[in-house]
Each structure stands twice: as structure tokens, then as C-alpha cells.
């Protein structure tokens, strides 16, 4: 872990940081430049990076990562309720609790590999979800979801301050974390997570994980016990999921059980694959695309489509609107599914592979045209 960052890494990190911090401007043409969506971009980016540390590096496909996300949410919310409105103890508490959960679930699940591992994680997550919805309601407030109340004890805060009037909102040493503040707050953690992922992937620990992915048996034959490594990766990954869940509560103070369902676990798998598994930027891109689909594509109703196609004559426009409405608005899942299938079939490396291929193609084109112009230039000589 002592190796210093290479020049490429520094450029990559600086570029990523610039894109993230400038998102409020960059996302404007896409209609995505409002705090809530950009907060989600950050939060699910963290979730996906965390997931990729496990899946991308070790090849273990967890189908239950949403459990840690949900546990982080509940932990943060209880910290707001019992301790303080300050986000720092909430995030710490969420990291600890989700870490303990990840340690326990990971310790058991990692005894198996392949699809058996996937099913074990899935089973644990579904148990968490079902219990949170029903018998654990005193802790989770069931379907309604856990929220802050004016009457919460908040012992830490009460020791130092009088209760502020109005509904309590999460804050950072007195600064409210709604709106753009929340975005920059989560952006800070996304960058930190990205940095961490970068360091891990270049470290001896990361290389060990990749070795496990390519051939665990061989690693074992060399007398190496791989379990501590995979378990560490699992716990780090679970804690990052918990961090993301806690940040979602910080920026939007509600913790519900739905975010622990297996479909939510499936979503983070989709994000990672879509963007490019095993790459640094890919999972974040995937998360952004899916959240964009979910929030923006789904809002294209018939009105929006009609004005979009307003340049077409009446009859044609109706046909166009009818066909497109199957893919956007309430049909946005269809587009997502199709894009996903196409990606898996043609670009197993996700969007990042696509980007690489296009770059390579342009590179060849560039060279080609240079050669062509040289060739054309020759006769004139």
C-alpha cells in the first residue's frame, strides 16, 4: 500500500474529480442538474464502487448487497434519533454497524463460492428485508419507514444545545445538508471512495484479490489462505454500501425496507455490469445511467412526447408518440432491459469497453487518415 500514485492515476483522479464537481453544470443539458438526482448519482456511485471492489476484484457475485445499504440507512437514522443531528456520528455508526453485518454474513457466505455464494448472500438479504418489513417493525417502522420526529431524544445534542424549533434535519456542525450542500457532501465521499478503490486496486492486496479471481485453486495450492483476503474485500464492500445507505438518509431523511429487497441488490449488479465490471469509472457511470433512466426517462409522459415530436405532422406524430411511449415513461424498464441485454451480449466489458473500442477505432482512423493524406500527398511530390 506504500506505492505512490502513478502519473496516470493522478490524471484519472483529477479528471474524475473535475467531472463530479462540475456535474451541476455538465448535467444541465440533460435535465438532470437538480440536487436530489445528483445526490443520488453520488450515493449510488459509492454503492457501485463498493460492490465492484468485491465483484470486480474477486469475482464473487453477491446478490444481497442491498442488505448492507439498508442496514447503513437504519443505523444512520438511529444515530440521528438517539445521538445527534450531526452527520459525522451517523456515518461512523453506519460504517460500524454495516461492517459488523458484512463480517457476519461474509464469514458464513464465503465458505462457499460460485452460485452457492450468490444464493447465500441473496438468502441473507431477503431475510433482512422480510424481517425489517414485519416483526422488526419496532426498529425499522416497517412499510412506513423510519423517520425523525421532533420528540426524538438526541442525547448528544441535548447535552450541548437547546432543541431547535421546527422539524429536525441532518446537519454538519450546524450546516444543513439539504440541496446542494448535500450534493457536495456526498461528492466528497464519492471522491474518497474512488480514491480508496484506486489505491486498493493498485496495492498488493488488490493484486491478491485479482489472483483469487483468476484462479482460486492455484492460490490455495501455493499454501495461501485466501479467505482473509476475500473476507476483507467483502467487509470493505459492505461498509461502503452502508456508507451509501447512510448518505441517502443524510440527504433524504427516511429509511425504508424496500431498499433491502433483492431487486435493489440486482440493481447494483446491473449498474456495475452496465458501466464495466472491474474498471474504476465504469460502476459509477452505470449507477448514473440507471438513476438517470429511473428519474428522467420515467417522467417523459405523453405531453412531453407530443411536444418533442411537435415538428411531425399529426398522424405521424401520434404513431411516433405511441411507439416511444412504450420505451419511456412507465415503459422505461423495457429500455433498460434492452440496453442491458445488448451490453451483455456485445460489450461484456460494459460501457468502458465500448469507450475503449471507440477510442481505439478513432486512433486507427486518425492514423489511417494521416496515412491516407500522406499517400495522397505523395504524387504531388
Amino acid at each position, binding site marked *: 500500500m506504500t506505492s505512490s500514485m502513478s502519473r496516470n492515476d493522478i490524471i484519472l483522479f483529477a479528471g474524475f474529480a473535475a467531472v463530479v464537481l462540475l456535474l451541476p453544470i455538465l448535467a444541465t443539458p440533460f435535465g438532470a442538474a437538480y440536487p436530489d438526482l445528483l445526490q443520488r448519482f453520488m450515493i449510488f456511485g459509492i454503492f457501485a464502487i463498493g460492490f465492484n471492489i468485491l465483484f470486480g476484484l474477486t469475482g464473487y457475485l453477491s446478490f444481497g448487497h442491498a442488505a448492507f445499504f439498508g442496514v447503513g440507512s437504519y443505523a444512520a437514522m438511529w444515530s440521528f434519533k438517539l445521538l445527534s443531528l450531526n452527520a459525522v456520528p451517523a456515518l461512523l455508526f453506519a460504517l460500524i454497524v454495516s461492517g459488523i453485518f458484512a463480517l457476519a454474513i461474509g464469514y458464513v457466505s464465503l465458505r462457499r463460492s460460485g452460485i452457492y455464494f450468490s444464493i447465500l448472500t441473496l438468502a441473507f438479504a431477503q431475510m433482512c428485508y422480510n424481517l425489517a418489513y414485519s416483526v422488526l417493525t419496532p426498529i425499522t417502522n416497517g412499510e*412506513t419507514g423510519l423517520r425523525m420526529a421532533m420528540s426524538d431524544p438526541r442525547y448528544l445534542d441535548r447535552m450541548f444545545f437547546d432543541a431547535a424549533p421546527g422539524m429536525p434535519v441532518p446537519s454538519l456542525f450546524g450546516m444543513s445538508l439539504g440541496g446542494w*450542500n448535500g450534493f457536495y457532501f456526498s461528492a466528497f465521499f464519492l471522491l474518497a471512495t474512488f480514491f480508496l478503490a484506486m489505491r486498493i486496486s493498485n496495492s498488493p492486496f488488490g493484486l491478491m484479490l485479482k489472483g483469487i479471481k483468476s484462479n482460486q485453486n492455484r492460490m490455495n495450492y501455493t499454501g495461501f489462505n485466501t479467505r482473509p483476503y476475500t473476507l476483507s474485500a467483502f467487509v470493505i464492500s459492505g461498509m461502503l454500501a452502508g456508507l451509501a445507505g447512510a448518505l441517502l438518509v443524510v440527504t*433524504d431523511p*427516511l429509511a425504508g425496507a*424496500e431498499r433491502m429487497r433483492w431487486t435493489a441488490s440486482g440493481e447494483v449488479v446491473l449498474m456495475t455490469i452496465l458501466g464495466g465490471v472491474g474498471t474504476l469509472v465504469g460502476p459509477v457511470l452505470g449507477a448514473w445511467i440507471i438513476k438517470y433512466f429511473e428519474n428522467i426517462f420515467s417522467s417523459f409522459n405523453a405531453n412531453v412526447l407530443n411536444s418533442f415530436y411537435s415538428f411531425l405532422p399529426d398522424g405521424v406524430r401520434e404513431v411516433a408518440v405511441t411507439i416511444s411511449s412504450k420505451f419511456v415513461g412507465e415503459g*422505461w424498464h423495457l429500455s433498460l432491459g434492452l440496453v442491458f441485454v445488448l451490453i451483455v451480449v456485445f460489450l461484456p466489458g460494459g460501457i468502458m469497453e465500448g469507450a475503449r473500442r471507440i477510442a481505439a477505432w478513432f486512433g486507427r482512423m486518425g492514423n489511417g487518415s494521416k496515412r491516407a493524406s500522406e499517400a495522397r500527398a505523395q504524387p504531388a511530390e
Partner: protein
Amino acid sequence: MTKFHMNRRGILKGAGAGLVTLATPHFFTKGAWAQDFCNNPTGGTVTFGLNLPLTGTYAEEGADELKAYELAIKHLNGEGDGGLLNVLKPSALKGNGILGKKVEFVTSDSQTLSDVARAGATRMIERDNAIMITGGSSSGEAIAVQSLCQEMGIIFMAGLTHSNDTTGKDKRRYGFRHFFNAYQSGIAIAPVIGEAYGNDRRAYHLTADYTWGWTQEESIKAATEALGWETVAAVRTPLGAGDYSQFLTPVLNSGADVLILNHYGNDMVNSLTQAVQFGMRDRQANGKQFEIVVPLFSELMAKGAGENIKGIFGTSNWHWALEDEGSQAFTKSFGAAYGSPPSQAAHTAYVQALLYADAVERAGTFYPPEVIKALEGFEFDGMGNGPTLYRAEDHQCMKSVLVVRGNENPTSQFDVLDVVQEVSRETTTYDPSIFGGELGSAEPVPQCT
């Protein structure tokens, strides 16, 4: 010692914009100064945010609500036949938009999930400048969005939500509910089933294992036990179980002679259908005919349950076959536009849109605290449920509630319910303090961007 409290604007104004905000360019907050409250409509239009389940379990309710909102907005803008604008009494609506501004709308698919519903509502507030959020088809969703709207200082007019909590322990100053609740269902249905099935019955509850199910089970249990019924067992079933047979088999030999299904949506369609397949409606128990009661169902669920709903008692907020002027006008207007009669979800959605618009007209401003004042304690008539009061204490509408029964001889695919009784507003009124909760402040928190 007072708490160091600073809002976002304070931060930006002050020098300490550093720390986490890094370098928030000031143009992000463009417009924040021009408006004195969140999303103050300054142009010629005003935007409603419709937060509807267009996919997921309650998709059909969502689609019907959307139709109703589109109709309401047309009528508010003076297009179409005017609908209920003509029958609302008293009314300040002029049919030229709201305060002269044309009404427009944006939509969001809530997928019947609280997280998604909140994200959608936030988008419509932050990006699309919605002045008011309305819609929804489940209580979890309604409560989640309602507390969000309180934080953002945006009024929320709840759609279909039946849990006691929405205007009970989770009530909010910015949230308003026209729909009735589980407690009122209990009050309304108990005398009717008591009369039909006698006062000496043994009931078996199957309850959806989440907050709404529990409040309804509690309310119905209390109401039926007051009649003299005995509760044999109350069994919780997982949400969305699909196949309920493992919960239905124990009912057969339990000694119960009434099965009460506290399920909603597809869960209710499935559990009822399967209960009928278990022969429960052909059974004799304790020397009496075995009966099934579904305390809350909608016409959409009745359509889903088909034959099995015939003769089953339940409660409804409203039904299109009501004879009063308002119901007739709405049914005509909706039927002419979409070729089918409206559901209760559509009705509540339509009415909520009109009531909000009317309150703004009466307040003379979109400023939420004034609009809230105009809605609180508002007494009106002509919307289909008789004289109605928007109660100030909990923002719950007090109006008549319908006891309905599955139609034995439907004349069309829409004619699935018979209205058995219209239980008066006096009967269904209850003391708001029994559910606790706190409305909170009407002053908007300056969080809106």
C-alpha cells in the same frame, strides 16, 4: 445557549462557503432571491407535480388517477365541460386557471415504492418547480412524500391512502387527505355486517404484515368485538405472498365462521380468490353460513376478483353510481372523456386538485401557509360525499363513507359494486386526538432550491 443554526442561504451569503460546498458557483441558486417561498410561480403558468404509481402493484389505480388529474386540470383551465367546478359549494374557482395562471403538470412514476416516490417528488419540486405535489396509491408512499413535503415547504394533497397514520401519528402541516381511513371503515362496516351476520360470530383475521394492515386489523377488531363478535385468531401474512393457501388451510378447522381479509390490491384479489376456492363460501361453521368480509376494497380490485367478490361486504370512499349532483357530474365528465366510469382513486385525485386550486383562490396567493389556512377547517359540499369538512386538527376530511357489496348481477364490466349504505359524516367522525401525532409548523423551511 442557543443552537448554532444556519440555513443554506445563510451559508452562501456568508464568507464560509468553503468546507464541503467547495466552490458552489452562485448561478446554481439563481432565482433563489427572487422568490420569497419555494417555487413561487412568477410566470403565466403554475405546475402541479403528479406522483403516481404507473408501474408496480397499484399501476391501474395510478393510471386512473392520472386520467382524473388531467381532467381536473382541463376543467381548472376552463376547457371541457367544467366538471365539478359547477357544483362545488362554496367555490372561488373561475375556470381561468389558478389566480389567472394556466395550470400545467409534470408526472413521476413512483413504482409504489417510498424511496422512488420521494425521489420523484423531489425532482418535481427541485427541477420542475412544482407548487404542489399530489397523488399516490399506498400509505407508505403517502407518508414518506408527506414528510418530505413538510421539509421542503410544499403542499401535499394525498391520493389514495387508507392508513390511520397518514392523518394520525404521521400527520403533517403540509399534508392533506381527502380519502377516508381504516378507523372510519371499521365504524362504518361494523353495524352493517352485524345486522347481516348476527352478533354472535367468531372471526378469523388474515392481515397483511405491515403498518396499514395492522391499523386496519386493530380498527376492525375493535369495531366487531364491540358488536359481540369473538376474534379467534389474527394471523399476519407476508406482503405480496401470492399464494395464501398455507394461511387459509388452518382457517378451515379453527372454529371461526367469518374470515376477515385485511389485504389490499393484488394481495386481496389473490387471498379472496383462493379463499373462495377453499370452499369457504359454501361452508357451514358453528351451524351458520361461513362468510368472508373485506373491510376495504376498490372497484378495480373487485374487477380483479371477478365472480368471487359477489355478495362480499366492504367499504369505499366513493362510488360512481351515487345519485347526488356532484357524483353524477363527475361520472358523466369522466365517462365522456375516457369511456369508462371513474374509480374512487380517480375521484379522490380529482377532488384534491380542485380543493387545492380553490384554497389558493380563496387565499389570494400561492404562499403555502396562507393556502394551508384556507384549507384547514374548510367546509364544502357538492363533491360527492355530502357536506364535507377538512378538519383543522389532523387534515382529515370528515364526510360520509360508503358500505358496499359485490354486485350479484352486474350489468356491465364496471357495475361490480352495490352501495349498501351511505354512513353519515356524524357517525364516522372521531376524536382526532386518539391517534396522537403532531402537525408541525406551517412556516416553510427555506430548503427549496
